[in-house]
């Protein structure tokens, strides 16, 4: 087997120094670290200094590809050497490299003015987001009216499909997370209550915090991550594959067929999931209280109605429905803004999840302030 390592050997002729190129001068061979460093030294020695070579002989090469030729051409200072012995094929490759070796037009650096302008663009971008959101909500209202006028022609098949994917398939994960949070909370609270000997109050604390706050918010955050992202990805891919344009050309209202069923499905599924998560969390908290503090499930259940007013349940369910609508709207909004390339799809999905979770927590805070007199 011939030695494929790219290398230069020197030949001392009476009148001139000659460099014999050997091995395979191809990208794959050149990129081997061991070969590359030695070759780099040999090339530099051959091109400048006392031992500069006058005559280059390429005929002994096993292979010369464009990367190898580029390396040579750059080493030669982008001009033909005084004497070159090369086969016609090698010469053709070198000539092509010589012809196409040009300076790359540089990226223009951004000036201060442009930075200022890009700040302005970002502000306008936020405004555009708000406008888009507003338009989406307006369209949703119109579509709802249309649905109320002709309920039989509603997108019910889409609705039931989304209900299944968003709601039913999320049951196991929300139950698991809720249960574990309930257990964790019960353990933490029990430590503190034991200090004061106020063990029975665990029912009040767990009941109120889980039913009023944690259940709905936890479910909403899980669904925002799970279904908000999938809504954005679905609509975003439809955008990338021009399906949205096709719908428009076919005269099918995208708000009515894409946004409305998703919003309806989430508005219905979210309260149900919230109740389900709360139940799982209560179960976890109840079992943990029994184990840690000896508060029996029977006592827990009998005390709960007195500890937590029923209006808390109404509040939680109503809040969840709002969360559901918001998650769906944010998901659709970012999905419809996706530009037809994969990078934009990724950015849109991330932005959608982050925004919807933020919006959920923000709106929850608003609810907490507005309804501070209800059920407490």
């Amino acid at each position, binding site marked *: 087997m011939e030695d494929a390592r790219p290398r230069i050997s020197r030949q001392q002729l009476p009148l001139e120094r000659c460099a014999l190129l050997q091995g395979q001068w191809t990208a794959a061979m050149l990129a081997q670290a061991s070969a590359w460093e030695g070759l780099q030294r040999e090339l530099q020695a051959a091109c400048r200094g006392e031992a500069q070579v006058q005559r280059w002989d390429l005929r002994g090469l096993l292979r010369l590809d464009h990367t190898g030729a580029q390396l040579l051409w750059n080493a030669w200072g982008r001009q033909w050497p005084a004497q070159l012995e090369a086969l016609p094929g090698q010469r053709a490759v070198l000539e092509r490299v010589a012809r*196409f070796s040009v300076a790359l037009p540089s990226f223009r650096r951004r000036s201060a003015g442009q930075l200022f302008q890009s700040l302005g663009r970002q502000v306008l971008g936020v405004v555009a987001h708000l406008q888009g959101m507003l338009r989406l909500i307006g369209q949703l209202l119109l579509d709802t009216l249309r649905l109320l006028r002709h309920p039989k022609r509603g997108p019910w098949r889409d609705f039931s499909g989304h209900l299944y994917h968003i709601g039913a398939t999320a049951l196991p994960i929300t139950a698991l997370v809720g249960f574990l949070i309930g257990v964790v909370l019960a353990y933490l609270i029990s430590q503190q209550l034991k200090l004061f000997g106020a063990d029975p109050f665990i029912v009040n604390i767990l009941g109120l915090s889980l039913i009023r706050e944690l259940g709905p918010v936890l479910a909403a955050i899980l669904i925002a991550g799970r279904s908000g992202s999938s809504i954005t990805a679905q609509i975003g891919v439809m955008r990338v594959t021009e399906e949205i344009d096709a719908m428009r050309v076919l005269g099918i209202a995208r708000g009515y067929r894409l946004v409305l069923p998703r919003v309806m499905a989430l508005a219905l599924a979210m309260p149900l999931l919230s109740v389900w998560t709360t139940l799982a969390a209560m179960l976890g908290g109840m079992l943990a209280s029994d184990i840690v503090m000896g508060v029996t499930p029977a006592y827990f259940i009998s005390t709960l109605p007195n500890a937590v007013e029923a209006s808390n349940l109404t509040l939680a369910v109503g809040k969840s429905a709002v969360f559901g609508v918001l998650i769906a709207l944010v998901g659709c909004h970012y999905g419809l803004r996706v530009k037809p390339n994969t990078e934009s799809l990724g950015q849109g999905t991330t932005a959608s999840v982050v925004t919807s979770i933020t919006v959920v927590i923000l709106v929850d805070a608003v609810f907490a302030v507005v309804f501070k007199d209800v059920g407490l």
Partner: protein
Amino acid sequence: MSSGKPVVEIDNLASVFRTAGQEFVVHKNLNLRIDAGELLSIVGGSGSGKTVLLRQILGLETPRAGRITVLGRPAVQLSDDGAASRVGMLFQHGALFSAFSVLDNIAFPLRELGTLPEALVRDAALVKLQMVGLDVAQAHKMPADLSGGMVKRVALARALIMDPPLLLLDEPTAGLDPDSADALCDLLRSLHRELGLTVVMVTHDLDTLFELSTRVAVLADQKVIVSGAPREVMGFAHPFIRDFFLGERGQRAVALLHQPPIAV
């Protein structure tokens, strides 16, 4: 490369697709041999498994049975390290990385080697960019801003970045306007000649087929029913060949082939 050894050798290939519990035989006892320096076109009806065959040559899909040897190695090993120096593939829709600029797309395989200095990588990518007939000014554009013909050219430049001896093309002219398709054909022909590439392409476009191919392999009845120069293949008696070459579109392409080129 020694001329006697085939670049691609396919022996008794069998592939089966399974959809909804039903098995659908795509290839059965398929044999094909592609020699160095050939420009082979694979033609066949829809669903005759042309693209599947191309993907199997690339090692992207594993056949049910049979052996595929590419450049003396089993096809499944083709995508190991340094694959770009063995084979180039032009995907039907270009498959450019949309997060990278044109130049970064072309330079990607070279840069991934990790050893070569950035300046050399950039120069090499610029050479390939211009070799496929694009202007240096396009180097910083993003794939989303390119036209269909330009996407194919960039994808071709990327496939050729490490000068692989074998180039595979999936419908190179599909979706291009006649001008761009002609330009791409000219480009492919000159690259084939200058670089001594072995080219395998799947095409429906008869003009491209007659213009470029040194050999045509016809896929029908789950195997290669005939392969040879375009004219020889046309003479073979088989319903698919009659419909494909001697249909109205085929006649037109053949008629053009017989006409002397317009004097310049």
